[in-house]
């Protein structure tokens, strides 16, 4: 498996791809985009991208995402200036810098979201 920071890069991208897949299956969105002249045909391509990204994420982390993202929208969120962008709460100062290989993922104490540090 790639180092954790690279897995989180893949996970945050996968989360955005999941949104794109939902948009692609949303009839209202399809009508709107169609009216504007945007083509939206190869949805199965997105599934392939999703599989490619998932293969770069450790099983337990991926399963945590699959399970929790059903409950919490935008499960993976960036941290900006020590503020969780999911719930806007400040993280405790003890919360350290970028995740390093071998360490567990960081989650927000307030909202439980997975924190993504850029």
């Amino acid at each position: 498996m790639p180092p954790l920071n690279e897995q989180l890069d893949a996970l945050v991208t996968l989360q955005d791809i999941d949104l794109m897949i939902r948009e692609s299956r949303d009839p209202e969105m399809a009508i709107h985009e169609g009216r504007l002249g945007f083509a939206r045909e190869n949805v199965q391509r997105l599934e392939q991208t999703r599989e490619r990204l998932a293969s770069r994420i450790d099983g337990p982390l991926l399963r945590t995402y699959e399970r929790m993202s059903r409950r919490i929208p935008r499960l993976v969120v960036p941290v900006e200036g020590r503020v969780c962008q999911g719930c806007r709460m400040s993280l405790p100062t003890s919360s350290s810098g970028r995740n390093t290989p071998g360490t567990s993922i960081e989650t927000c104490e307030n909202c439980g979201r997975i924190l993504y540090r850029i």
Partner: protein
Amino acid sequence: MTSPSLAASRNASSLESLLRPTLFVSELRSKKKASVLDELAAALAAAGLTRSPEIVAELLREREGLGSTGVGKGIAVPHARSTLIAERAVLVARSAKGIDFDATDGKPVHLLFAVVAPPVEPDPIYLKVLADVVRAVRLSRTRQRLLEASDFDTVREILIHAAAE
């Protein structure tokens, strides 16, 4: 000055608040679609909209993989919503030479509007911004004036007027 209709003023405001001088690329360096998307993402990062231009570029590419956002008549509206985008934005970019963007009419693209937003669901404003952009450039004289405009302020004025028309 005639007062614009309510609908028109609503139209104007959607683009008005989003168009910014830092979100303007007067002439794209890239000629190929893939590298143009990289250049757009880099410009968004330079304007402070994202700190992850590589991922944003990848998402724009994935959206294009679904089908081109080159809507014809030299216009493309690459767009994506991402966790790594700070706020809604429209980046305006031009290419005098034109870019092969797999547009629906097969013609090269000269005007690009990259529309990005955070992943809020549902986001009717995001959909409205996409519609406003396409609407603003429906007339050929507007497109011509946008290509000839000497600076961002002129581009902004043309777009806001065209969206309100």
